[in-house]
């Protein structure tokens, strides 16, 4: 059974879902999230927001994805080492660490947002990723 790593993710992007044929193959809004296939060229931009819960039916699973670039993520090893280890403090200055972060793909993300008739922004979400996911 795959393990789950919980992490809070700060990203620049926009939300989409598995019914979007631009990014997903063979999926519909009713699909089982575990069977969703992300098109190869977009894989690095899609951060799953839904949860692969073992006890829920496909209908109960979230089917959302954030299309975007990760700025930082607080993973399950990031405890409160505030002053001991500033790299894993878990306490962030939103302006400096997120809004002013250098983005590599903002133009591409903005363009994709426009195609999807939305706007990219700075987002926070909790992502539970399956360690041995098959995307």
């Amino acid at each position, binding site marked *: 059974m795959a393990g*789950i790593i*919980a*992490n*809070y993710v*700060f990203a620049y992007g926009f*939300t989409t879902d598995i019914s979007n044929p631009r990014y997903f193959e063979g999926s519909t809004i009713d699909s089982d999230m575990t069977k969703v296939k992300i098109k190869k060229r977009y894989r690095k931009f899609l951060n799953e*927001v*839904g*949860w692969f*819960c073992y006890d829920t039916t496909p209908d109960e699973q*979230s089917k*959302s994805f*954030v299309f975007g670039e990760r700025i930082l993520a*607080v*993973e*399950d090893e*990031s*405890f*409160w080492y*505030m002053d001991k280890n500033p790299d894993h403090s*878990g*306490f*962030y*200055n*939103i*302006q400096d660490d*997120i*809004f002013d972060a250098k983005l590599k793909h903002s133009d591409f993300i903005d363009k994709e947002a426009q195609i999807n008739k939305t706007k990219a*922004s*700075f*987002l*926070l*979400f*909790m992502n*539970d990723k399956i360690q041995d996911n098959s995307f």
Partner: protein
Amino acid sequence: MGIESSILIGYGFRIPESDYKSLLRKDPEDDDYYIEDGHYTHELFDEESTFVYGKILYSTEARVYFWNGNREVVDLKKVLKIHPMQKKKIDRMAEKCKAKAIYFAAATIY
């Protein structure tokens, strides 16, 4: 068994323990905490008694494995809204403590 986690977003600063105790009054409901006027939140963030003085603008928590909490995606700029008077008050307190208030995100997963 599972992973519990929480994240807070707010406007404030890490208040030194000495200032925390001298500038604020004890919470009548909990001896371990100090409060001011109810508009501000002081959170114990770690095992070393680190406190943040400020206003919490957004918070969420989750418990993975048996999770039934919040899955929303939050637009950060939309949650960073604080009343100018509250901001001023926090800034004044920061000044007293020789600190600078910021918009912060504080997350823990344990």
